[in-house]
């Protein structure tokens, strides 16, 4: 295994980084790191690895927080730890990675009973990812104007193909 691939493994796996911290040679051997890269791999700084890995997760959290604002607000102080726990086990694969992350995080929260998902936000991120032309949802608590109201949420694509979101509110 080359150093870049080995580094990807370390950056995506906290448990592996802990093993590496304790015994870098053992992890190098277990991964089968190429002989040419052996020295450089073994000398990777564990603190630097953790810092880089945390930055990767933080950047994902930053993006998802922009897509799921009300959901994250609802989670409060638990938003970051919940997302970090989710993000270490799930890595999106597409250029729409932030939407992939947002959808998967919604699924995670519901499955774990770890917090309430804002339905309107979930509808939006799923719609963008699914690539459908048109969707209509009744949403009981659409966040708008500082409160949550009944709304008809309409999701569609404009002439350019960009997803758009409109809501009609009811008292």
């Amino acid at each position, binding site marked *: 295994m080359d150093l870049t*691939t080995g580094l990807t493994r370390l950056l995506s796996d906290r448990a592996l980084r802990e093993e590496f911290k304790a015994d870098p040679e053992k992890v190098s051997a277990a991964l089968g790191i190429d002989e040419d890269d052996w020295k450089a791999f073994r000398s990777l*700084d564990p603190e630097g*690895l953790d810092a880089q890995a945390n930055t990767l997760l933080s950047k994902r959290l930053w993006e998802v927080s922009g897509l799921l604002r009300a959901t994250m607000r609802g989670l409060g102080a638990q938003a970051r730890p919940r997302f970090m726990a989710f993000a270490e086990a799930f890595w999106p694969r597409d250029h729409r990675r932030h939407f992939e992350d947002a959808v998967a995080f919604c699924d995670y929260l519901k499955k774990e009973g770890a917090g309430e998902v804002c339905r309107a936000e979930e509808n939006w991120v799923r719609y963008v990812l699914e690539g459908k032309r048109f969707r209509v949802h009744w949403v009981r608590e659409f966040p708008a104007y500082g409160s949550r109201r009944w709304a008809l949420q309409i999701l569609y*694509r404009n*002439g350019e*193909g960009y997803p758009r979101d409109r809501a009609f509110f009811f008292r």
Partner: protein
Amino acid sequence: MPDVPEAVQGVAGGCGGGCGDNGMKGLVGIGYRFPLASWIDTAPAEIQCLEITAEHFFDAGEKQLRALRKRFPLFIHGLGLSLGTPGPLDRKTLDNFARVSKIADPEWVSEHVAFTRSSDVDLGHLNPIRADRRNLDLVARHTREVSERCGKPIILENVTSHLSIRGEMPEPEFLGRLCEKADCGLLLDVTNLYVNSKNHRFNPRSWLRELDPNRIVQLHVVGYTVRNDRYEDFHAEAIQEDLFELIDEVFAYAPVKGVIIERDSHFPAPHDLENELRNLRTALEKHGSHDGTHTTS
């Protein structure tokens, strides 16, 4: 010093078609982001060029891209080609990137000296590669492939990293040899340089002077973020004074042809961005970087 590489000589003299002739060759502009679209549509005088993130137009926006091209010189910037990943480039990503490039007809395209994924995991963001001969060959090969596929000059960007990897050569030497091998230019991200210099405690000015100034085609600039005593490139703040001093030194050192404010979030009011653009333009003009007769301090 070596001559300006052939691959970027075409961009000397600046903006190509559609930009109008304002006598300036070093262009100052901003990364195109959808929250800024309404403001950009008013074509403020301060915006002389736009940088388009290729991935933002993979799924939609062809008409919009063509319209932008008529009004501004464009640069196409990639995030996900992962030039540092061993093996072939991802076909689908390259196809999409080339398609966007064809529509936008940019002055040049750019990517990073980094990797974002391996065959089994996509980390989603940029990570450092080891500065060694094997990666020189790999990234140079991938760089040429992207340039040939797009039919455009390509420039490569330095990245931030909290991780130092023991390499065969220092980073500036690696970048220099890479540019030579790939016949390409450099996109110097001054913020990334500054962030790395703080986290890894080195002198950014000494680092800068190890680079061939004629290879530096474009700059990225944006304010840094400090969190938990670490410097970060979250692209969310205005350019700080100490960072601006470094930018000014780069203008004195290298005849840059494009400067892009790379703001991704926490967007300020348009007049604040206009001020930032104006300040950059003033600094650029002060050193005469726009016509290649730059002053070196």
